């Protein structure tokens, strides 16, 4: 089994799915000749041709709208939105059309569409290339929203998304493409969309995170292990549907919960997890449910010190873990 980068695992999934099923097509800005701005779609254009790997205009509503049309007519499109910040023009297509197709047609039509998009802040990505959009879409019944962390999951969950009969929003934190590495098997396998994964067992407190925040939370947990605090870290790789059982089982064990997300704190996805724990694990709690998230400012600043101020870094996560453990 080869160790590979997150971006390579996604690339492998594309190649394999397009080889496996000729209905699979890819469309988006620069996905063809350039192979994607992050290289996720590298080599597809050369191998599968412009019929199946389509460079689109800079018009996100059109990308998703066209993909919905393809899905309705028997294709299995993977639409790439170059940055999650630019997905907003397609909000109407995603929420009002794709997500509702099955419900609106009384189960006559589905919308087997995958929308991939890089999200989150990296170095100097600033207001227009840093946004976290998961809360907007996780709110919508009819959509699946996933944010895999390991390269293994990236490949297995993208394959599952392609084969899913309904629309899936596939979120890739852009820091992870070249930083996160992991073992990825050759050949076909699926990671089902739904279950969460306990990445680190612990007994003192539970941390729930996804994407890059999971990466930072795991690093913070290692720091706390040296201090004698045993942190359980749960990968919420599928935000909708949400794996309640794994979350509640973890809280039942540790009685303390911290949710970490990079999005603005107010109304963020972590609020839903916090509410779930408060409602269904109340009798297990030994401390208030805690959230650590980005501050409530309209965007991640470009200025280096201000950008640093924004991020829930591993040090800040470790500090929050200590506060929770000491409560």
């Amino acid at each position, binding site marked *: 089994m080869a160790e590979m980068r997150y971006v390579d695992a996604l690339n492998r999934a594309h190649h394999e799915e397009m080889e496996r099923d000729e209905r699979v097509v890819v469309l988006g800005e620069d996905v063809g000749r350039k192979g994607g701005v992050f290289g996720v779609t590298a080599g597809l254009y050369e191998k599968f041709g412009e019929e199946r790997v389509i460079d689109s205009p800079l018009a996100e509503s059109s990308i998703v709208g066209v993909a919905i049309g393809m899905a309705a007519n028997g294709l299995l499109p993977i639409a790439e939105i170059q940055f999650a910040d630019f997905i907003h023009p397609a909000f109407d297509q995603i929420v009002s059309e794709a997500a509702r197709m099955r419900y609106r047609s009384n189960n006559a039509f589905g919308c087997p569409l995958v929308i991939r998009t890089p999200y989150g802040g990296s170095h100097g990505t600033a207001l227009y290339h840093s946004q976290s959009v998961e809360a907007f879409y996780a709110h919508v019944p009819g959509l699946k929203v996933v944010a895999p962390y390991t390269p293994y999951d990236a490949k297995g969950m993208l394959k599952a998304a392609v084969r899913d009969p309904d629309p899936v929003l596939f979120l890739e934190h852009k820091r992870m493409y070249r930083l996160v590495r992991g073992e990825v098997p050759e050949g076909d396998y699926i990671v089902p969309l739904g279950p969460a994964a306990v990445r680190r067992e612990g007994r*003192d407190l539970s941390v729930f995170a996804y994407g890059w925040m999971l990466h930072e939370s795991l690093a913070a947990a290692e720091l706390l292990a040296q201090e*004698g*605090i045993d942190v359980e870290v749960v990968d919420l790789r599928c935000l909708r549907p949400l794996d309640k059982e794994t979350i509640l089982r973890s809280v039942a064990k540790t*009685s303390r919960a911290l949710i970490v997300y990079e999005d603005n704190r107010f109304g963020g996805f972590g609020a839903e997890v916090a509410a779930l724990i408060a409602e269904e694990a109340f009798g297990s*709690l*030994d*401390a208030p449910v805690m959230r650590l998230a980005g501050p409530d400012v309209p965007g991640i600043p470009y200025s280096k010190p201000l950008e640093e101020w924004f991020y829930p870094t591993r040090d800040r996560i470790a500090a929050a873990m200590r506060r929770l*453990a*000491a*409560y």
Partner: protein
Amino acid sequence: MPVEVTLPQLGESTFEGTIGRWLKKPGDRVERFEPLVEIITDKVNVEMPAPVGGVLTQILVPEGQTVPVGTPIALVETAAPAEAVAAGAPAAAAAPAAPPVSQEGPRLSPVVRRLAEEHGIPLEEVARLRGSGAGGRVTKDDLLRYLQARQAAPSAAAPPAAAPAPAPAVAPVPPSPAVVLRPGDQLLRLSPLRRSVAQRMAQSKREIPHAYGVIEVDVTSLVRWREAYKDQWRAREGVNITYTAFFVRAAVEALKAFPIINSTWSDEGIILRRDINIGIGIALDEGLVVAVIKQADQKNLVGIARELEDLGRRAREGKLTLDDVQGGTFTITNPGVFGSIWSMPIIVPGQAAILATDAIVKRPVVRNDAIAIRDIMHLGLAFDHRIFDGAVADRFLHRIREKLEGFAGGDATLTDF
């Protein structure tokens, strides 16, 4: 830390108590809820459980001395199991500066409350532990360690102390004018029971405008049945069948018909009592106690007879509990056992009426224009005239008479009437 143990309020109208016997000596260990001292009040003798666990360091009130409620009677040096718990908590040491905890008292988290309930540990006991959480909060781990320690050294489970009753709405007795002892006079110091009876009777006569009604009842058939079957009945049911049991049943039935009589006067209005709890006057050498048959309307003749016998026995043995003497809503007193034929009882404060059952005597009476010898008794009702009037009292008494005179007899298998 030494903790003062004070004389608790034992019952609605207890103002003082006498130390009967110390069950622990200075220097003895005492567990929380372990019986510490016997206290004699005007109504009952109780074993007072220790309010805290620790070592009894000093007895402040010797046996036989009577002190008011609230008087410190002993000092207990509290054990510190919580410190031992805290010492075993590594997380606390590793934890950095915790956020300050508000001063609103100990907070118990949901899981701590749940675990405490599951293990039957009072929350107050948990709150007293010194926790390893922020501001000394008791964490789940603290409680789990405490449970382990507790299981390792089990202490005799004892019932918690009776909750202090709310302060009685009783006007203080005005001081008596100074009494002069003449040569040869003897001063009998008041026993707690005597003092309590005096206070309550004076309070009743002071506050309640008593009115009276008396009727004559022909209980010949009841007497004949009892004379014929009391031994068989006793053999069958295992208890004595007394006339009082019949009077209780008849009174209960009449109270159900006249709920206004099962009531309490208050400034806001008349409180109709749902439960019918019949107080029974029991004469003891030291004075009168009133033991209560709770929910008497839900018991048949056998049940009433059994409870009468039990209460009487325990009253004589000094084993009545607080619960036995509280909560009465109507009282039956039986001066007839001493031969009284016409009594005017005093209402128990907080009730609306009291029924006196006088002696059953054979009298010549006119029946069908002929003179007959019948078993006759008087029933005397004293009632609070603020609550209802004489007409109601008389109808109530007639109802009792109908019930008693309508006794159909039967054999020893009788279980109710």
